[in-house]
């Protein structure tokens, strides 16, 4: 190392600027080397990470959009399901009411029919009973008539006796009927 005289200091004109081909070449090579090193060790890495981050942000935004759309769709679907459920509930309730109404009417109709039937049956029974009773009364009356005839035949009857006899027979008949 040494302190040296100035380069091209003695030169004049453009030469005084110190233009030197070898220095020029060194600067060119220096720049090329610096460019290559920075390209591989800085630009490529930094731009790469910037690109990756940009892609990730883009992807995240798209994902967020997708999630938002999905959530919206799900919310709409839930709302639809809820509406359908509500409508279904209303329908079931209505049907149940209708069924209950139908059942009530059916039961009423059935009860009415049963009571009618029972009434008919009772009436028929009463009719039968009455007929039987009348038959029985008739038979008893016939018996009484026969008895009365026998008694008439056995005694000569005046008018008063005849009447008393008839009253007696009728009274017996009523007594028998009330006993039955």
């Amino acid at each position, binding site marked *: 190392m040494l302190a*040296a005289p*100035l*380069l091209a200091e003695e030169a004049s004109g453009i030469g005084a*600027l*110190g233009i030197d081909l070898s220095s020029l070449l060194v600067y060119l090579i220096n720049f090329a080397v610096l460019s290559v090193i920075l390209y591989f060790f*800085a630009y490529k890495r930094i731009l790469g990470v910037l690109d990756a981050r940009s892609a990730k942000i883009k992807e995240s935004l798209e994902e967020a959009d997708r999630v938002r759309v999905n959530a919206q769709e799900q919310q709409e679907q839930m709302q639809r399901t809820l509406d359908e459920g509500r409508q279904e509930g209303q329908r079931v309730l209505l049907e149940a009411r209708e069924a209950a109404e139908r059942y009530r009417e059916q039961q009423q109709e059935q009860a009415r029919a049963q009571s009618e039937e029972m009434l008919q049956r009772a009436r028929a029974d009463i009719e039968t009973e009455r007929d039987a009773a009348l038959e029985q009364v008739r038979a008893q009356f016939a018996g009484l008539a026969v008895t009365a005839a026998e008694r008439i035949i056995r005694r000569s009857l005046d008018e008063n006796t005849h009447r008393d006899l008839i009253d007696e027979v009728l009274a017996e008949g009523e007594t028998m009927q009330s006993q039955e």
Partner: protein
Amino acid sequence: MVKVFAGAALIMVLVGLALGAIGAALFGNQPYIPLPEVHLAPQEVLTIAGFTITNTLLSAWLTTIVVILLFGLGSRATRMVPGRWQGFMEMFLEALYNFIKGVAGEKFARPFFPILATMFIFVSFNAWMALLPIYPTVGFTADGHHEITTHLFRSSGTDINMPLALAVISFLFAEIWGFKVHGIGYLKEFFRGPNPLNTFIGIIELLSHFIRLISFTFRLFGNMLAGEIVLGMMTFLLVFLVPLAFYGMELLVGGVQALIFMGLTLVFTVMAVATHGDHDNEHSEAGSH
């Protein structure tokens, strides 16, 4: 508190004024900082196998190493959730990338990025590192003298070979992309047919492409050299505090120059890759305005 700082600053300015060249002229003493020597050409530090290593070249290598360490270590283990350093690297490079994308579009932004970003980083860091105290204070003295005659490091922007090398890269970058996109048809930009007016325009266009080499070179060289001289002179004249304002300005100049260099290369490359039809459209639109 503000008054204390203001008072201290005023005292420093006055002391600097007294110790600097202005005070030396007034009081007849030697200036605290020696008059800076202005060298257009870089200074030789050592020679290895016939190759001269200059202080500007050393500075370029130092910048290269620092940049590789900063950006290489910053992006050593990239993660999706970045740390502070990675976050800073990402912010810095993404800003550059968006700038390039804004001009060149999505299609060309990625292939243009490595060269253009390196241009910006190298030019700016080179200018900013030249503001470090080791640049003007470390060097070699001549025999029997105390003053430094050869600095160990000097901003490589002040060495015309560095701006020229970048200008060559910028020129080649634009032209190679022009040929890459249009093939041999790119030459139609310069050879526009038998019409004398078109021929003239083609020649002017061709010249403008080569003149870019000169404009690129001297813009950067001039600004960097002027910055170095301004800083040296202000330190020589006022010593304390006031030169700091110029250091701040040079910090800005370094970034602006890097942005201009990268931006112009980008614009010229975009013009080269644009179709001739696009050019015609642009011209007709410009004409209509």
